């Protein structure tokens, strides 16, 4: 398979990264080279192999359902681009 310009634009949109036509063309060239390398994976038959998602076979730890965090919203919100009344401000999404 080979990538086309529309794929790059679609993926950029999915990833919420604004991309100009020129950037998309440069990116297409670079990704084409990288995917050429990635295609080497298809040479190996892996039909019987179980996917490995993680380096260690560990079981997810469980904890008691109790509050462990203290309220630090003022500290955390002091880093936010826009805050009002203890709320993060974003552009209006509902008319």
């Amino acid at each position, binding site marked *: 398979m080979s990538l086309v310009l529309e794929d790059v634009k679609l993926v950029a949109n999915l990833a919420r990264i604004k991309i100009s036509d020129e950037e998309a063309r440069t990116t297409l060239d670079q*990704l084409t080279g990288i995917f050429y390398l990635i295609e080497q994976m298809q040479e190996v038959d892996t039909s019987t192999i179980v996917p*490995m998602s993680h380096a260690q076979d560990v079981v997810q730890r469980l904890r008691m359902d109790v509050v462990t965090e203290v309220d630090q919203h003022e500290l955390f919100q002091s*880093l936010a681009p826009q805050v009002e009344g203890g709320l993060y401000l974003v552009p209006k999404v509902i008319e």
Partner: protein
Amino acid sequence: MLNLSLKQLSTLLESKKISSVELTREFLKRVEILNQEYNAFITVNEEMSLDQAYVADTMIASGEACPLTGIPIAHKDIFCTKGWLTTCGSKMLSNFISPYDAHVIERFNMTGTVNIGKTNMDEFAMGSSNETSFYGSVKNPWDITTVPGGSSGGSACAVAARMAPAATGTDTGGSIRQPAALCGVSGIKPTYGLVSRYGMIAFASSLDQGGAIAKSAADLALMLNVMVGFDARDSTSLQRDKEDYTRDLEKPLEGLRIGLPKEYFAEGMSDDVSRGVDAAITEYNKLGAKMVEVSLPNTKLSIPVYYVLAPAEASSNLSRFDGVRYGHRALKYADLDDMYEKSRAQGFGAEVKRRILIGTYVLSHGYYDAYYIKAQKLRRLIAQDFAEVFKQCEIVMGPTSSTVAFALGERSNDPLQMYLSDTYTAAASLAGLPGMSIPAGFGNRSRPVGLHIIGNYFSEAHMLNVAHQYQQVTDWHTRMPEITKV
């Protein structure tokens, strides 16, 4: 002073021949003079460093000193450090004063070490040359026209130029080992799960692992003694008994079986690196080790697999940078989507965007099985290769990097060439195995060569022993670049 080991510095501090404040001032002075040229640090804060030094001196005076109390340590700017600017090498976090400490930083603080500054790095740890940093390239102190390697290039440079006695780093596909090799210092990436990822800004969570860069294996052992430990806030942190990583340093190597994967010694390795590695193997033979030829047949797949899995995880991890709760937000935007898109387009550099796009693509509908699941299956084959090899030997050796340090700009416009820099290191990361690089002489134009040491899971103490014994009979690790400015 500059070439003293961590143990020697500790002894000076404990015997009150020098105070932590004096030691900290000494290193701060050196950083001030050298950093303009090398750009190894993003943030230096004399006041905060000295505050910690005063605390350390009090600890020492009251007999509460631990092995590293009072010693200045440089921290990669990927570790959240309370009250310190923590940028991860990105414009996205160029205004982020961390409100909390990473677990690793907490552990160093408990020990009473001094944070000497936050080191430069490839943006979000994505790079093998430190050229993707928003804060500019780091220079290799052995030759300032060359790269220090990456992504922990600032940490490796800081140790090589003796701006810090030791530094923290992180390794996802080679980001501790490759810069350690290119800068002629020692570096270790422990077994996945030993060092908590809490507060270590995430790149590829199933691969990211904190570790250390220092002058010698003995110093690395002391660093791991501080860094390794269970942390409930990292769901992949391993619960194990406490280890003393210095315990095996002095053991003889008689009878040690060292596996040399034939794939690592095939085409691709440059002649000067090959000479350095061969000479190191000769030393190991003299130390009583036996060489065994082994095979890691899926070696060539490790780069394709890595460049599917790491970007996939990165695209998910970096979705949190949306300009809402912290980090960069575009000044002008039309609506919410436009705000996300512009903030991310402005906040991320080219390499980070490239990897997010690769990751988004391989995880997208219709390609998930062909790329992501396929890569996970091959990851198992790569891990199984190592399991077979460790039936025939205890340690695997080879080159850390196929070449010595390359010129600034040489690979930065060719992502594919840059990705191939991780050829020898990515496989151990995929398997979750511990890996090290130690100095093994010099190649062309007197640039350092790194010897790669891979061990089985949890064999760090043994690997450090193997490295330390070599460093007892060679002096490569004591060499430092000629620095005329100071």
